Protein backbone atom coordinates (compact mmCIF):
# COMPACT_ATOMS: atom_id res chain seq x y z
CA UNK A 1 0.00 0.00 0.00
CA UNK A 2 2.81 2.41 0.89
CA UNK A 3 4.57 1.58 -2.38
CA UNK A 4 1.39 2.23 -4.32
CA UNK A 5 0.75 5.44 -2.43
CA UNK A 6 4.27 6.65 -3.18
CA UNK A 7 3.79 5.75 -6.84
CA UNK A 8 0.46 7.55 -6.93
CA UNK A 9 1.96 10.70 -5.45
CA UNK A 10 4.78 10.66 -8.00
CA UNK A 11 2.45 10.08 -10.93
CA UNK A 12 -0.37 12.40 -9.87
CA UNK A 13 -0.33 16.12 -9.22
CA UNK A 14 -0.63 16.63 -5.47
CA UNK A 15 -3.94 18.46 -5.86
CA UNK A 16 -5.42 15.40 -7.62
CA UNK A 17 -3.79 12.80 -5.31
CA UNK A 18 -7.07 11.83 -3.59
CA UNK A 19 -8.60 10.85 -6.94
CA UNK A 20 -5.64 8.64 -7.75
CA UNK A 21 -5.80 6.31 -4.73
CA UNK A 22 -6.17 2.61 -5.39
CA UNK A 23 -9.88 2.23 -4.51
CA UNK A 24 -10.64 5.06 -6.95
CA UNK A 25 -8.55 3.47 -9.68
CA UNK A 26 -10.28 0.12 -9.25
CA UNK A 27 -13.67 1.81 -9.22
CA UNK A 28 -12.81 3.64 -12.44
CA UNK A 29 -11.69 0.42 -14.12
CA UNK A 30 -14.89 -1.39 -13.24
CA UNK A 31 -17.24 1.45 -14.04
CA UNK A 32 -15.69 2.41 -17.34
CA UNK A 33 -16.19 -1.19 -18.41
CA UNK A 34 -19.60 -1.82 -16.90
CA UNK A 35 -21.16 1.57 -17.69
CA UNK A 36 -22.09 2.25 -14.09
CA UNK A 37 -24.78 4.82 -13.43
CA UNK A 38 -23.97 7.55 -10.91
CA UNK A 39 -25.51 5.71 -7.97
CA UNK A 40 -23.93 2.32 -8.67
CA UNK A 41 -20.55 3.97 -9.21
CA UNK A 42 -20.86 5.81 -5.94
CA UNK A 43 -21.83 2.59 -4.17
CA UNK A 44 -18.99 0.61 -5.71
CA UNK A 45 -16.39 3.23 -4.86
CA UNK A 46 -17.61 3.38 -1.27
CA UNK A 47 -17.53 -0.44 -0.97
CA UNK A 48 -13.99 -0.73 -2.31
CA UNK A 49 -12.78 2.07 -0.05
CA UNK A 50 -14.55 0.51 2.94
CA UNK A 51 -13.01 -2.88 2.17
CA UNK A 52 -9.58 -1.26 2.41
CA UNK A 53 -10.47 0.36 5.74
CA UNK A 54 -11.84 -2.92 7.10
CA UNK A 55 -8.75 -4.83 6.01
CA UNK A 56 -6.63 -2.25 7.85
CA UNK A 57 -8.71 -2.74 11.01
CA UNK A 58 -7.81 -6.42 10.94
CA UNK A 59 -4.16 -5.58 10.12
CA UNK A 60 -4.49 -7.22 6.73
CA UNK A 61 -3.24 -4.22 4.74
CA UNK A 62 -0.62 -6.24 2.85
CA UNK A 63 -3.12 -8.90 1.83
CA UNK A 64 -5.63 -6.26 0.70
CA UNK A 65 -2.98 -4.47 -1.34
CA UNK A 66 -1.88 -7.71 -2.97
CA UNK A 67 -5.48 -8.49 -3.95
CA UNK A 68 -6.10 -4.95 -5.19
CA UNK A 69 -2.84 -4.99 -7.19
CA UNK A 70 -3.96 -8.24 -8.81
CA UNK A 71 -7.37 -6.82 -9.70
CA UNK A 72 -5.75 -3.78 -11.30
CA UNK A 73 -3.05 -5.75 -13.13
CA UNK A 74 -4.98 -8.81 -14.24
CA UNK A 75 -8.56 -7.62 -14.48
CA UNK A 76 -9.91 -7.38 -18.01
CA UNK A 77 -12.95 -5.84 -19.61
CA UNK A 78 -15.27 -7.92 -21.70
CA UNK A 79 -16.61 -5.02 -23.71
CA UNK A 80 -19.34 -6.99 -25.45
CA UNK A 81 -20.69 -8.18 -22.11
CA UNK A 82 -19.83 -4.93 -20.27
CA UNK A 83 -18.24 -7.07 -17.57
CA UNK A 84 -15.03 -6.40 -15.68
CA UNK A 85 -13.57 -9.61 -14.36
CA UNK A 86 -10.42 -11.27 -13.11
CA UNK A 87 -11.49 -14.61 -14.50
CA UNK A 88 -9.89 -16.24 -17.49
CA UNK A 89 -11.94 -15.60 -20.61
CA UNK A 90 -14.68 -18.12 -21.21
CA UNK A 91 -14.78 -19.94 -24.49
CA UNK A 92 -17.84 -20.92 -26.47
CA UNK A 93 -16.11 -23.67 -28.38
CA UNK A 94 -17.35 -26.99 -27.10
CA UNK A 95 -19.92 -29.26 -28.75
CA UNK A 96 -22.26 -30.90 -26.28
CA UNK A 97 -24.70 -33.74 -26.83
CA UNK A 98 -28.23 -33.23 -25.55
CA UNK A 99 -28.84 -36.99 -25.44
CA UNK A 100 -31.88 -36.66 -27.76
CA UNK A 101 -32.17 -38.58 -31.02
CA UNK A 102 -32.93 -36.95 -34.33
CA UNK A 103 -33.03 -37.44 -38.07
CA UNK A 104 -32.83 -33.79 -39.02
CA UNK A 105 -32.31 -30.33 -37.54
CA UNK A 106 -36.04 -29.80 -37.28
CA UNK A 107 -36.19 -32.60 -34.70
CA UNK A 108 -33.95 -30.56 -32.44
CA UNK A 109 -35.98 -27.35 -32.49
CA UNK A 110 -38.24 -28.55 -29.69
CA UNK A 111 -35.35 -29.37 -27.36
CA UNK A 112 -35.51 -25.81 -26.12
CA UNK A 113 -31.77 -25.51 -26.57
CA UNK A 114 -30.79 -22.49 -28.71
CA UNK A 115 -28.93 -23.46 -31.88
CA UNK A 116 -29.41 -27.22 -31.43
CA UNK A 117 -28.74 -29.19 -34.60
CA UNK A 118 -28.76 -32.82 -35.66
CA UNK A 119 -25.35 -34.49 -36.08
CA UNK A 120 -24.89 -38.28 -36.30
CA UNK A 121 -28.53 -38.72 -35.31
CA UNK A 122 -28.11 -36.82 -32.05
CA UNK A 123 -29.16 -33.29 -31.16
CA UNK A 124 -26.00 -31.38 -30.34
CA UNK A 125 -25.33 -27.75 -29.50
CA UNK A 126 -22.47 -25.32 -28.97
CA UNK A 127 -21.51 -25.06 -25.31
CA UNK A 128 -19.02 -23.39 -23.00
CA UNK A 129 -15.77 -25.31 -22.68
CA UNK A 130 -15.91 -25.35 -18.87
CA UNK A 131 -17.41 -28.82 -18.94
CA UNK A 132 -20.81 -27.81 -17.53
CA UNK A 133 -22.56 -28.01 -20.88
CA UNK A 134 -24.01 -24.51 -20.75
CA UNK A 135 -25.36 -23.51 -24.19
CA UNK A 136 -23.79 -20.44 -25.73
CA UNK A 137 -23.45 -18.46 -28.94
CA UNK A 138 -20.47 -16.21 -28.08
CA UNK A 139 -17.60 -16.27 -25.58
CA UNK A 140 -19.43 -13.63 -23.55
CA UNK A 141 -22.12 -16.18 -22.72
CA UNK A 142 -19.62 -18.29 -20.82
CA UNK A 143 -18.80 -17.60 -17.16
CA UNK A 144 -15.09 -17.93 -17.65
CA UNK A 145 -12.41 -20.04 -16.19
CA UNK A 146 -10.07 -19.74 -13.27
CA UNK A 147 -10.04 -16.55 -11.21
CA UNK A 148 -6.56 -15.10 -11.72
CA UNK A 149 -6.73 -13.41 -8.31
CA UNK A 150 -8.14 -16.35 -6.38
CA UNK A 151 -4.92 -16.90 -4.44
CA UNK A 152 -4.76 -13.26 -3.31
CA UNK A 153 -8.47 -13.25 -2.43
CA UNK A 154 -8.07 -16.40 -0.34
CA UNK A 155 -5.08 -14.99 1.55
CA UNK A 156 -7.04 -11.83 2.34
CA UNK A 157 -9.99 -13.88 3.53
CA UNK A 158 -7.77 -16.09 5.69
CA UNK A 159 -6.09 -13.07 7.26
CA UNK A 160 -9.41 -11.49 8.22
CA UNK A 161 -10.89 -14.77 9.44
CA UNK A 162 -7.87 -15.28 11.68
CA UNK A 163 -8.27 -11.81 13.23
CA UNK A 164 -12.05 -11.85 13.60
CA UNK A 165 -14.01 -13.56 16.37
CA UNK A 166 -17.32 -12.98 14.61
CA UNK A 167 -18.32 -16.24 12.91
CA UNK A 168 -20.93 -14.45 10.81
CA UNK A 169 -18.69 -11.69 9.48
CA UNK A 170 -18.92 -11.18 5.73
CA UNK A 171 -16.18 -9.19 4.05
CA UNK A 172 -16.79 -6.84 1.14
CA UNK A 173 -15.62 -8.12 -2.19
CA UNK A 174 -14.89 -5.78 -5.01
CA UNK A 175 -17.34 -7.52 -7.33
Amino acid at each position, binding site marked *: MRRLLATAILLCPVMFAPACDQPSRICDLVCECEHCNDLSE*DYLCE*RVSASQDIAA*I*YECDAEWSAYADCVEDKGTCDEDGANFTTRETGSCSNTANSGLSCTGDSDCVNTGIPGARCENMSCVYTACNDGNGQPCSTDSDCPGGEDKCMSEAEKLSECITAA*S*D*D*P*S*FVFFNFD
Partner: protein
Amino acid sequence: MPIRFSACRAASVFAMATALAVALGAPGCNDADLQTYCEERESCRGGNEQDIDACVVASETEEYIVSDIGCSDEYVAYFDCLLEKGSCRTVGQGQNCNTDEDCFGGQCSSNNVCETKDFGLEGEDCEVEQRAYSRCFDLD
Protein backbone atom coordinates in the same frame (compact mmCIF):
# COMPACT_ATOMS: atom_id res chain seq x y z
CA MET B 1 -35.52 55.55 21.13
CA PRO B 2 -33.68 53.92 18.28
CA ILE B 3 -31.57 50.84 19.05
CA ARG B 4 -27.94 51.36 18.30
CA PHE B 5 -26.41 48.34 16.61
CA SER B 6 -22.85 48.51 17.86
CA ALA B 7 -19.95 46.47 16.55
CA CYS B 8 -19.87 44.56 19.84
CA ARG B 9 -23.52 43.63 19.59
CA ALA B 10 -23.03 42.61 15.94
CA ALA B 11 -20.11 40.36 16.91
CA SER B 12 -22.06 38.67 19.71
CA VAL B 13 -25.10 38.13 17.49
CA PHE B 14 -22.88 36.64 14.81
CA ALA B 15 -21.22 34.34 17.36
CA MET B 16 -24.59 33.15 18.67
CA ALA B 17 -25.91 32.61 15.16
CA THR B 18 -22.81 30.65 14.23
CA ALA B 19 -23.05 28.48 17.33
CA LEU B 20 -26.69 27.79 16.60
CA ALA B 21 -25.95 26.94 12.98
CA VAL B 22 -23.15 24.61 14.02
CA ALA B 23 -25.38 22.91 16.59
CA LEU B 24 -28.19 22.40 14.10
CA GLY B 25 -25.89 21.21 11.35
CA ALA B 26 -23.51 19.22 13.51
CA PRO B 27 -22.83 15.67 12.37
CA GLY B 28 -24.77 13.13 14.35
CA CYS B 29 -27.89 15.22 14.79
CA ASN B 30 -29.81 12.82 12.55
CA ASP B 31 -27.45 9.87 12.25
CA ALA B 32 -28.12 6.32 13.37
CA ASP B 33 -26.22 5.24 16.50
CA LEU B 34 -24.04 2.79 14.62
CA GLN B 35 -21.48 2.46 17.41
CA THR B 36 -24.09 1.18 19.86
CA TYR B 37 -25.61 -1.10 17.23
CA CYS B 38 -22.24 -2.61 16.40
CA GLU B 39 -21.36 -3.09 20.06
CA GLU B 40 -24.67 -4.87 20.65
CA ARG B 41 -24.30 -6.99 17.53
CA GLU B 42 -20.73 -8.08 18.17
CA SER B 43 -21.40 -8.73 21.84
CA CYS B 44 -24.12 -11.11 20.70
CA ARG B 45 -22.03 -12.77 18.02
CA GLY B 46 -18.91 -13.08 20.16
CA GLY B 47 -16.95 -10.55 18.14
CA ASN B 48 -13.88 -8.62 19.35
CA GLU B 49 -12.96 -4.93 19.24
CA GLN B 50 -11.80 -5.19 15.63
CA ASP B 51 -15.15 -6.71 14.69
CA ILE B 52 -16.92 -3.74 16.27
CA ASP B 53 -14.76 -1.29 14.34
CA ALA B 54 -15.30 -3.23 11.09
CA CYS B 55 -19.05 -3.26 11.72
CA VAL B 56 -19.03 0.52 12.14
CA VAL B 57 -17.15 1.04 8.86
CA ALA B 58 -19.50 -1.29 6.98
CA SER B 59 -22.58 0.36 8.50
CA GLU B 60 -21.26 3.84 7.74
CA THR B 61 -20.87 2.81 4.11
CA GLU B 62 -24.49 1.74 4.00
CA GLU B 63 -25.51 4.95 5.74
CA TYR B 64 -23.63 7.02 3.16
CA ILE B 65 -25.38 5.30 0.26
CA VAL B 66 -28.74 5.55 1.99
CA SER B 67 -28.20 9.26 2.44
CA ASP B 68 -27.21 9.58 -1.23
CA ILE B 69 -30.59 8.29 -2.36
CA GLY B 70 -32.57 10.29 0.15
CA CYS B 71 -33.56 7.57 2.62
CA SER B 72 -31.74 8.88 5.70
CA ASP B 73 -34.90 9.51 7.73
CA GLU B 74 -36.20 6.00 7.11
CA TYR B 75 -32.78 4.52 7.89
CA VAL B 76 -32.46 6.37 11.18
CA ALA B 77 -36.03 5.53 12.20
CA TYR B 78 -35.41 1.85 11.51
CA PHE B 79 -32.12 1.82 13.42
CA ASP B 80 -33.59 3.69 16.38
CA CYS B 81 -36.33 1.06 16.57
CA LEU B 82 -33.85 -1.77 16.14
CA LEU B 83 -31.76 -0.51 19.05
CA GLU B 84 -34.85 -0.06 21.21
CA LYS B 85 -36.50 -3.40 20.51
CA GLY B 86 -33.69 -5.60 19.24
CA SER B 87 -32.20 -8.42 21.25
CA CYS B 88 -29.59 -11.13 21.05
CA ARG B 89 -31.28 -14.33 19.94
CA THR B 90 -30.63 -17.65 18.26
CA VAL B 91 -31.55 -17.78 14.58
CA GLY B 92 -31.63 -20.59 12.04
CA GLN B 93 -29.22 -20.42 9.12
CA GLY B 94 -31.53 -22.44 6.85
CA GLN B 95 -29.17 -25.35 6.51
CA ASN B 96 -29.30 -28.95 7.75
CA CYS B 97 -26.31 -30.42 9.52
CA ASN B 98 -24.82 -33.34 11.38
CA THR B 99 -21.96 -31.53 13.12
CA ASP B 100 -20.94 -27.93 13.83
CA GLU B 101 -18.46 -28.15 10.95
CA ASP B 102 -21.40 -28.35 8.53
CA CYS B 103 -22.48 -24.87 9.63
CA PHE B 104 -20.78 -21.69 8.44
CA GLY B 105 -19.75 -20.19 11.76
CA GLY B 106 -22.81 -21.58 13.47
CA GLN B 107 -23.66 -24.60 15.54
CA CYS B 108 -25.61 -27.75 14.75
CA SER B 109 -28.71 -27.95 16.96
CA SER B 110 -30.26 -31.10 18.39
CA ASN B 111 -32.71 -30.90 15.48
CA ASN B 112 -29.81 -31.03 12.99
CA VAL B 113 -30.33 -27.45 11.88
CA CYS B 114 -27.56 -24.84 11.70
CA GLU B 115 -28.09 -22.01 14.17
CA THR B 116 -26.18 -18.92 15.17
CA LYS B 117 -26.59 -15.98 17.50
CA ASP B 118 -27.42 -12.56 16.10
CA PHE B 119 -28.75 -9.21 17.27
CA GLY B 120 -32.08 -8.50 15.65
CA LEU B 121 -35.84 -8.24 15.89
CA GLU B 122 -38.58 -10.67 16.84
CA GLY B 123 -41.98 -11.05 15.24
CA GLU B 124 -43.47 -7.83 13.93
CA ASP B 125 -41.26 -5.49 15.91
CA CYS B 126 -40.30 -2.42 13.88
CA GLU B 127 -42.26 -3.74 10.90
CA VAL B 128 -43.53 -0.27 10.03
CA GLU B 129 -40.05 1.21 10.08
CA GLN B 130 -38.62 -1.76 8.20
CA ARG B 131 -41.25 -1.48 5.48
CA ALA B 132 -40.75 2.27 5.12
CA TYR B 133 -37.00 1.76 4.78
CA SER B 134 -37.43 -1.04 2.25
CA ARG B 135 -39.97 0.92 0.19
CA CYS B 136 -37.67 3.91 0.08
CA PHE B 137 -35.29 1.86 -2.08
CA ASP B 138 -37.98 0.76 -4.54
CA LEU B 139 -37.87 2.35 -7.96
CA ASP B 140 -41.35 1.08 -8.86
